[in-house]
């Protein structure tokens, strides 16, 4: 009953497994009522706030402050969106977020999966210790590395670019990725790679041609996780950018606040909706990939 026996791609390929469907009986149907009820509640709890957010993006400041929370907006015009896009400069911020996120994500996945492979599949003395060193990185509060990193980036002359963000995101994203990938590789029997090596492939090639594809579902999961960490980060972005041209979307959302604490709710909600729409498209796309990956795994094995 160890994880080693439960290799996903090896066993679930059996053609008998997929189309299996239990018979439906009246008892079963009754049993499903609480399930359906809980799904219904779940959906309301998840969807209502989103609708509220979207409605909020059409409200005026006055409606925010004086109408009940659940009231519908009085009119559907795009003033808030125009305001968010022009005054709020949301376009630039989304661009910056993408420039910071995509390279970091690429580096995290490439470095992290490779390191996970080296730490779990390859056999060498001290690998347990190195894994622990990576694991320790999950525990460090991000606030702690800000001052040293700021000094370092400044001395090297990276301040005023998006490089500090890319480097910091990559470094902070690695521990979790390495750890998770090591866990996933643990489920793959070493014999697969040994066989590849006997065929004359080097271990590096074996990694790219066998190891990486084998865990690609996990890669998508990890990438997804990291994407939202990075995309929603405020602390690091705030620390290493000091220029509106470099601000990421999360920093940009603070632009709708005034010096003495006033908030422009309408444009803020519009900006949030633009932000959410972008991530939603990306998520749906990635989600498709995850699904395809899962299905592909079941067929090919």
């Amino acid at each position, binding site marked *: 009953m160890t994880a080693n026996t439960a290799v996903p791609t090896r066993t679930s390929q059996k053609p008998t497994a997929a189309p299996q469907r239990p018979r439906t009986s009246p008892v079963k149907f009754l049993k499903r009522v609480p399930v359906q009820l809980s799904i219904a509640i779940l959906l309301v709890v998840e969807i209502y706030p989103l609708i509220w957010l979207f409605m909020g993006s059409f409200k*005026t*400041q*006055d409606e*925010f*402050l*004086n109408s009940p929370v659940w009231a519908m907006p009085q009119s559907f015009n795009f003033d808030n969106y125009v305001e968010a896009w022009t005054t709020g400069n949301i376009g630039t911020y989304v661009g910056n977020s993408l420039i910071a996120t995509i390279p970091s994500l690429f580096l995290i996945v490439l470095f992290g999966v490779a390191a996970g492979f080296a730490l779990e599949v390859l056999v*060498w*003395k*001290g690998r347990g*210790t*190195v894994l*622990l*060193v990576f694991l320790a990185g999950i525990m460090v509060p991000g606030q702690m590395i*800000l*001052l040293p990193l*700021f*000094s*370092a980036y*400044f*001395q*090297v*002359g*990276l*301040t*005023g*670019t*998006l*490089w500090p963000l890319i*480097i910091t995101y990559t470094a902070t994203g690695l521990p979790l990725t390495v750890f998770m990938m090591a866990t996933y590789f643990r489920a793959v029997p070493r014999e697969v790679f040994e066989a590849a090596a006997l065929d004359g492939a080097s271990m590096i090639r074996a990694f790219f041609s066998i190891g990486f594809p084998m865990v690609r579902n996990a890669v998508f999961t990890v990438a997804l996780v990291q994407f939202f960490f990075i995309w929603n980060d405020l602390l690091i972005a*705030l*620390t290493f950018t*000091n*220029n*509106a041209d470099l601000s990421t979307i999360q*920093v940009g959302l*603070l*632009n709708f*606040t*005034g*010096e*003495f*604490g*006033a*908030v422009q*709710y309408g444009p803020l909600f519009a900006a949030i909706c633009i932000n959410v729409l972008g991530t939603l498209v990306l998520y749906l796309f990635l989600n498709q990939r995850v699904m395809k990956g899962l299905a592909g795994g079941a067929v090919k094995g």
Partner: protein
Amino acid sequence: MVSVLSRPKARAIAPVIASAGALALLLSGCGAGGGSSAQGSKDFSYLTNVENTTIRGELEALSKDQCAAENKAAPLKVETVPQTSLDQKLQLLAGQNALPVQYAAGNAPALTQDLDKSGNVLDFEKALKDLNISDAILPGAAATIKSLYGGKLNVLPYQYNVEGIWYNKKLFADNGITEPKTWDDFVAAGEKLKTAGVTPLAASGKQGWPLTRLVSGYLFSDLGPDAMKKVADGQAKLTDPEYVKAAQAVADLGAKGYFGQGVGSIDYDTAASQFLSGKAGMFYMGSWILSNFDDKAQNKIGEENIGFMPFPKVSGGKGIDNQYATNVGLPMTFNAKTYDSNASAWLKCIATNYGSTALKDKNSISGFKLNTPVDNIPPLVKSTQETVNNTKESVLWFEALFSTKATTTSQTNAAGLASGSITPQKFMELVQNDLNSK
């Protein structure tokens, strides 16, 4: 490298450190064309809070008009940071000796003084004298700045705000209330408003400071303008009975329901909106609120219905007549370390032009002398500006001379004081403890 990496971590780290430099070089090569934030008098760099659009907007306007020559010599380069992370940014920049030529000098005066002690803040008294424009700053504004920074003119008065109580003239008239002169009248007015179903006093407990302003207002009125200075100097403690009395007075207002329910969750906009929609009769706020009053969409009671009064006198108190608290907004200063001929040219141009252009373009009242008369400003702005000009003696605010820690404690606990979840004694104790630990 290969063999090293396969050994345990302790020995593996050293060579990696050695190669860190190589990586850094590599990365900086990639980042070529960036890395522009290094200081230098080539630019007139200006770090400001992103929330304040007025000052940077005006400076950008000046750079194209009155200060075009200065801008040619040293172009204005604005960098922004959200106000909440300003203090952090200042620390990081000061640690690298990389503060810009002009910058927002921290959320609390204590931080500005730290910056001054480490030689990062220009002495404007001397700088303006050298430029022969010592009169460019209004005497009242200069006095406010000096009382904040231990007698030194450390910052520029881009804003000069006067604080007091705004009231709804119509609600006052409807309920037979005249402008309250004393604290007792003030409390009585609150009672009448409450009976009429109006929230007597709109205040943002979420931010805290609108509530602690009432505590300090009471203190200045009761114990005299030096009440908070005494605490700062250690001659008095907030836990002394005469100080706790002021916290008690504010707690009493809360207990009577004068702030309405849930004062802790009322934010700035909600408080302003309560007042401007006629749901609240009075509103303690600074003159920066005038831009909201001027906005027809927000102001439903009409500008002509808004009155402005000084903080009421506590009977038998030692306070000054017509007591207003004043401030210069988020402090803006020049970096003493980068002050050169380009910077001084900018300073001269700003000091001689900003007052008039800001008032003309943005209805923004500053502490700079008006060198060109400005017409056509809204009546309420005009009368407030006159109040500002005529204020010779003013007081500071509750946290003005506190450490940043005591400031945070005071403002985060203010709502508890007003809602009764902590006692006045406890409130003053918490703040005093933080003052002691400094």
